[in-house]
């Protein structure tokens, strides 16, 4: 079993906490001039996304988590699972709903996602920062209003709903920032 000692702690290190893989967000070394040194760490549980704080006596060891982030191409979904492929090895991976999280709202086939693998299985999926999706439904909007000030809801081909300016219509492709879930622009042709 691989372990990390507290003096190897740093941001991004993946460790096992209470049976779940976690990523260290912040590691603070706390030591009185005379006396016991501590490592006070903030971690993100990679399965639940929850942030937790732990204190270790310096010199303690923690089990390493076999976690890898890799770019995989999204292939398709059967409604229950989402299938990905490593574009170099052609190896396939299967992600469940929990691992997909919000990514289901944004991705369509061929998109390349950053997938977090724990012991070889996906536990987290990050969609590309920007995606281009077609509007399947939105109100025609008021004629003559091109200011786009208020905006209106639009349903996209993936089922996600974003606010778009009034002049954008059903059937158009738009660029969306997946981190904020906001409309960026109309997608340029070609």
């Amino acid at each position, binding site marked *: 079993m691989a372990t990390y000692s507290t003096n190897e702690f740093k941001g991004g290190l993946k460790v096992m906490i209470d049976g779940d893989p976690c990523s260290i967000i912040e590691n603070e070394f*706390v*030591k009185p001039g*005379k006396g*016991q040194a501590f490592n006070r760490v903030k971690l993100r549980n990679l399965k639940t996304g929850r942030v937790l704080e732990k204190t270790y006596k310096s010199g303690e060891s923690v089990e390493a988590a076999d976690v890898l982030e890799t770019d995989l191409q999204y292939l398709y979904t059967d409604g229950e699972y989402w299938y990905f492929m490593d574009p170099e090895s052609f190896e396939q991976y299967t992600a469940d709903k929990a691992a997909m999280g919000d990514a289901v709202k944004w991705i369509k086939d061929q998109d390349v996602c950053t997938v977090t693998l724990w012991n070889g299985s996906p536990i987290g999926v990050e969609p590309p920062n920007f995606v281009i999706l077609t509007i399947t439904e939105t109100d025609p909007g008021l004629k003559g209003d091109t200011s786009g000030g208020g905006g209106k809801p639009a349903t996209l081909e993936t089922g996600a709903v974003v606010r778009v300016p009034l002049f954008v219509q059903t059937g158009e492709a738009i660029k969306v920032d997946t981190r904020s879930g906001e409309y960026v622009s109309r997608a340029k042709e070609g």
Partner: protein
Amino acid sequence: MDSPDWRPVARMETLRARAALMAAVRDFFAQRGVLEVETPLCSRYATTDPALDPFVTRYAGPHAPPQGTLYLQTSPEFPMKRLLAAGSGPIYQICKAFRNGEYGRRHNPEFTLLEWYRPGFDHRRLMGEVAELVQTALGAAMPVERWTYADLFHHHLGIDAFHAPSDALAMRAREFGVDTEGMAGASRNAWLDLLLSHVIEPRLPPDRLIFIHDYPASQAALARIRPDDPPVAERFELYVGPMELANGFNELLDPQEQRRRFRAEQRACTMAGTPERPLDERLLQALAAGMPATAGVALGLDRLLMLKVGARDIREVLAFPLERA
């Protein structure tokens, strides 16, 4: 810190503030007739404190110690005490100290220490001089508060730091939201350190000098123990907000007691599986020859500079912290 690796991390104006701080400290002691001294950074002896990990280096040449092993100092305390025993009178030193593994927002493994000794002072009187030095250096007449260790723990935590058992300390830590799973096998002192560093320090006000004094005898380090009930170590620490700035003692003079403490620390090192370090026989000889009653203190100058320039990370006040050294 996104600049190229060869460049300094501290800004030039911070480096000028550092130079001004050094000049102010030297002026402070010159006016008071305290002598500046230098002692070796490398020694055949080392601290026996199990909480400190000294860097080890090798020397080849005449008078080489066994295997050529020399230790970089974790503080200049032992040789400065030999000077006191030799009749130096009041002395101070500005030097580098080295502590392996200590890296964080307020730690760099190589740092600058100001250490001074006042024959004829006790720790109470020395606290007064420390306050004057810090106020002079910061150019601010900050209010000063003095708290005993017992009062501070009672005030902030409602517990008796001298008598509460370990599990009561652990429970208090959990009540204050500190996760304690990584504390397996912690000593009572480790629990006290946890409460002080995780609960009390963050609650200390940043606009004043807070002295904590009269520590539990189990945390005496090199301080005299006063036979009160319970006995207390005549030791003090200075905090400004959560920043520990200085540690001082009414210095232990008794060579037998000093040897007992060295031996106890060596045993603790053995128990912890860390290599045993040679205890400083020359310090023991100096104490046996007779050192005048003295109070002494070590103050972190990088941290004082952090306060002066309002830095949040020690790297902001170092030209080349470890990662650029």
